[in-house]
């Protein structure tokens, strides 16, 4: 076997370096996309887990309120509970640091004496402060930054820093630095500590704590301790293991990750098409060589092993390169995804990529599997030819006019299967059958491509008139080399369909959300706390500011909104508190179920809530049902007064009156105020007046309703950028497919091209013929991709989106985008055909016509 490798395979590879590299690049790209998505997904979750572990330290249990701080007196109860070795109180707050370009920082208020039993810190002090660091740290303005954060933003010991908090802007002083170990590693170093008493004062938590971390005595059963603590502390707090947060985050990100993984597999399918084409091309070129070998007595089985071995080696090189490329791509994806994840899901600092052996192995296995799967068929076909035929076939285009009906029937069957699969319910929370329906649809339509290409015969007179004899020949080449052109066209169809479907979904999503914001947002101005850079920050504001706002000139009314992540039946959901008495005066929600007037009244006057349509679908709850929510005052029952259209959260939203919310959560903060401007007042003037009034205390970001709607649309589109990046890669792989398919065609038709030159065709005309062939593939792949994309979008919107997010979206087709993308695709296909066109133009005439 080695002799065959040395004599046959290696010279071939050496001779056709370009094509070998192209095929390996196709596999590498497919694997890279898969690896990049996996790495991004794992890195996101690992980063969060690292932060959870770093902050938790040695604590095995944590005690928190249900979306609200807990009474600090509980600390004594905890410490007295048998089995508790140590308990450390924590006050946690997010701030933005003005001197650090407005970077976010998680400040932990800790008890400097007891906290070391739970967490490890290594402080770095100034020489002068070494004498009594504790005294220094307990000063009310003392802040201890992580060394990483201080270095990143050029902050030194003794530097004053201005932090934006939910309670306004405060001046603190960097009194110490934390070496990058233990808790200081949390959030990529965006972590600081201060004395707990100072933190309680600074963040308005007097007498309250955000968390108590518990270290159990060695050997004490953890479950028993958890149960004992829960019993002693009552139902208003939750005792859980810190790692439970990881599971919550995993749930939050699951749909996002599943979507990305599904898209990455599509890129691999396109890669599969490419490998099929490059193997076909290699086999076609070597048919004569294979014929000679077989005539010399080399068994068919041995040749199969030889060529499949070559393909596997190529697959292995491509896959390993793909893993490396995937890491690079992950960095790009991280750059694209991180803002979306940070904005939508969690505030994590993704600065470390995690490539697990599992991911690398899965990538390589997928690459190898794809290569083998794609190479098997062309190799089988090549070895089926009798040795003598193979010897005579070099450079001769001998179309085997296989009937198209069998593959058409398969295609129709797959389309029927796609429809059937789309009707099935989700598997758990994963829309598995929806994704399979997408796959069946794409493969089904790909199977109809031969029929489509054959049917193009009706366009022959048209092409002859429009494209001359080159047009006619290009069309016939497509129609008579169906196997080769089908695969390349199907790759174009698949990748383009993905792009179009996602574009339709984004447009539908944007349009739906825009309409929803239009219907529900009644206030003229939206007031948020500003970041040091003057942008909108995620910091909350005290509800008490409402009275001050109401007293300003030009302000007619003010309502507020507060959003809180809570858990319902173990899942993360969004709780929104709104000043219903104000809101109801100006508008209402778009109701999906329930009587709007009665429901609004019920929410205002009783312990009732509105739930979003996706919440209602997910938990099968409707008007008249009752919800039991965990609150700081223990589990409480809330009647569902109505089901409303709401796109605030893909996890489901519960909306209640602020008065009801405060009664159970005792939360004085809001996320935003909605200001209703008096008739005749100028919006900009009122906005400036509001900012001036709070200047120095609260930097405010005031947006008009119109601007807010624009920002919402930007935010909605942001997470999808990464999908566009993946689709562009898939299209690039498909275009490589066009190049290899046309190159293979040139090899197959060497004699034909020679004859054309001999009867008077110029080099330019041959080049034009190949370009037209590529362009036609672009037109067929693109137009069928448009159709496939539309139906894929239907599945994405009405099946997957509904099953994963529970939302109803209004189907909106971005016509201009689709048209522009189609033109670009055809242009890109022409560009991809350029090299084969030059190849055709350079065919040596005499050599070509002398092939026998």
């Amino acid at each position: 076997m080695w002799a065959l490798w040395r004599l046959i395979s290696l010279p071939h590879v050496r001779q056709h370096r370009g094509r070998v590299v192209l095929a390996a690049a196709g596999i590498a790209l497919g694997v890279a996309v898969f690896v990049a998505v996996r790495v991004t997904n794992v890195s996101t979750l690992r980063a969060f887990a690292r932060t959870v572990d770093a902050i938790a330290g040695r604590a095995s249990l944590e005690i928190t309120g249900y979306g609200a701080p807990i009474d600090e007196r509980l600390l004594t109860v905890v410490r007295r509970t048998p089995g508790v070795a140590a308990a450390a109180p924590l006050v946690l707050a997010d701030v933005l640091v003005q001197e650090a370009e407005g970077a976010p920082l998680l400040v932990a208020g800790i008890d400097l004496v007891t906290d070391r039993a739970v967490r490890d810190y290594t402080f770095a002090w100034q020489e002068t402060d070494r004498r009594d660091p504790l005294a220094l740290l307990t000063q009310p303005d003392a802040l201890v930054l992580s060394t990483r954060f201080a270095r990143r933003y050029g902050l030194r010991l003794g530097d004053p820093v201005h932090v934006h908090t939910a309670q306004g802007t405060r001046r603190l002083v960097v009194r110490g630095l934390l070496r990058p170990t233990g808790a200081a590693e949390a959030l990529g170093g965006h972590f600081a500590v201060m004395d707990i008493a100072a933190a309680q004062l600074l963040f308005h938590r007097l007498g309250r704590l955000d968390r108590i971390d518990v270290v159990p005595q060695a050997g004490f059963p953890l479950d028993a301790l958890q149960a004992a603590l829960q019993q002693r502390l009552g139902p208003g707090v939750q005792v859980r293991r810190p790692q439970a947060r990881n599971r919550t985050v995993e749930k939050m990100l699951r749909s996002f990750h599943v979507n990305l993984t599904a898209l990455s597999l599509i890129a691999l399918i396109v890669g599969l098409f490419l490998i099929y084409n490059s193997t076909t091309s290699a086999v076609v070129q070597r048919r004569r060589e294979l014929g000679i070998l077989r005539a010399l007595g080399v068994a068919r089985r041995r040749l199969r092993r030889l060529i499949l071995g070559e393909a596997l080696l190529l697959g292995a090189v491509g896959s390993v390169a793909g893993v490396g490329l995937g890491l690079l791509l992950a960095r790009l994806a991280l750059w694209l995804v991180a803002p979306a994840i940070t904005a939508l899901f969690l505030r994590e600092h993704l600065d470390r990529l995690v490539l697990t052996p599992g991911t690398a192995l899965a990538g390589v296995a997928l690459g190898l599997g794809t290569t083998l799967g794609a190479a098997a068929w062309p190799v089988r076909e090549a070895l089926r030819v009798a040795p003598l035929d193979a010897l005579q076939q070099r450079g001769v285009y001998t179309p085997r006019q296989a009937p198209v009906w069998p593959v058409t029937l398969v295609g129709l069957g797959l389309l029927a299967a796609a429809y059937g699969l789309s009707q099935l319910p989700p598997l758990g929370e994963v829309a598995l059958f929806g994704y399979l329906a997408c796959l069946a649809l794409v493969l089904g339509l790909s199977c109809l491509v031969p029929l489509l290409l054959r049917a193009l015969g009706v366009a022959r007179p048209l092409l002859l008139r429009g494209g001359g004899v080159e047009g006619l020949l290009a069309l016939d080449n497509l129609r008579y080399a169906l196997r080769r052109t089908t695969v390349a066209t199907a790759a174009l169809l698949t990748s383009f369909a993905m792009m179009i479907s996602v574009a339709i979904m984004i447009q539908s999503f944007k349009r739906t959300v825009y309409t929803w914001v239009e219907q529900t947002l009644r206030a003229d101005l939206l007031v948020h706390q500003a970041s040091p850079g003057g942008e909108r920050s995620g910091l909350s504001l005290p509800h008490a500011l409402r009275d001050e706002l109401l007293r300003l000139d030009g302000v007619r009314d003010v309502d507020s909104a507060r959003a809180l992540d809570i858990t319902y039946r173990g899942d993360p959901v969004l709780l929104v508190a709104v000043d219903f008495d104000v809101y109801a005066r100006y508008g209402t929600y778009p109701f999906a179920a329930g009587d709007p007037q009665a429901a609004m009244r019920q929410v205002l006057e009783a312990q009732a809530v509105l739930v979003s349509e996706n919440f209602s679908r997910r938990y099968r709850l409707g008007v008249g049902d009752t919800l039991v929510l965990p609150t700081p005052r223990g589990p409480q029952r809330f009647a569902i007064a109505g089901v409303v259209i709401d796109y605030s959260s893909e996890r489901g939203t519960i909306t209640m009156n602020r008065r009801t919310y405060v009664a159970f959560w005792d939360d004085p903060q809001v996320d935003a105020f909605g200001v209703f401007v008096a008739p005749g007042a100028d919006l900009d003037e009122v906005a400036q007046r509001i900012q001036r009034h709070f200047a120095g205390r609260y930097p405010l970001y005031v947006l008009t309703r119109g601007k807010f709607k624009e920002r919402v649309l930007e935010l909605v589109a942001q997470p999808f950028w990464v999908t566009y990046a993946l689709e562009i890669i898939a299209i690039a792989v498909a275009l490589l497919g066009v190049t290899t398919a046309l190159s293979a065609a040139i090899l197959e038709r060497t004699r034909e091209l020679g004859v054309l030159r001999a009867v008077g065709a110029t080099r330019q005309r041959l080049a034009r013929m190949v370009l037209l062939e590529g362009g036609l593939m672009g037109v067929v792949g693109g137009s069928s991709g448009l159709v496939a994309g539309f139906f894929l979008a239907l599945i994405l919107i009405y099946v997957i989106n509904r099953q994963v997010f529970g939302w109803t979206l209004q189907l909106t087709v971005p016509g201009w985008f689709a048209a522009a993308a189609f033109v670009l695709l055809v242009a890109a296909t022409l560009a991809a055909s350029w090299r084969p066109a030059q190849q055709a133009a350079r065919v040596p005439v005499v050599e070509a016509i002398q092939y026998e």
Partner: protein
Amino acid sequence: MKATLALDQVSKEFRQGTQVVRAVDEVSLEIEAGEFVAITGASGSGKSTLLHLMAGLETPSRGRVLVAGKDLATLRDAELAALRLHTIGFVFQFFHLLPALTAEENVALPLLLAGVAPRQAAARAAELLAWVQLAPRRTARPAELSGGEMQRVALARALANDPAILLADEPTGNLDSQNGRLVLDLLYRSCKERGKTLVLATHDRAVAARADRVVELQDGAVVSISAAER
């Protein structure tokens, strides 16, 4: 009559590994309009290379090839293509028809390449197919035709643009005797009835016997030029 095709001290060398092989050696020849010249010689004597040089498909290593007074070496690629399209028709031993096209489309191909309107091209192709006695087979594709039929289509294609010169490389070499005779008759009639200059490469003395002159090659060089034995 003036020479429509002239070769002046033409040589063609090929490099095979480290060796230089002289396929055509100092050939000088003048062929006049309407003349039928047979090039004969054993296999490997340089017949096909000589025809390729005449068609501008190969460039001579030395010497000049003149077609209608034009030195082919001075022509650009597009001009050579135009020459092959309008002035020279080529008939190959292995027919070389495009398998995706029908017989009529194969014949119409040079016309379409020359910019003739599709309808006119089809009409001319039909007329030529009738002349080669293939009118009923005009919609057949090459795979549905016999060897003799394919060669007749190839001849019709070569005549499509009414070229002054017909070059035929072993046109009967792949045919049985009956079909070979039929094709040769058609080629002969093209020359004598239609006034084409016919240069035919063959190793078959009986075929060469119908030519006006027979040029015999040996190792690329002309060993004799004689009037055919009739």
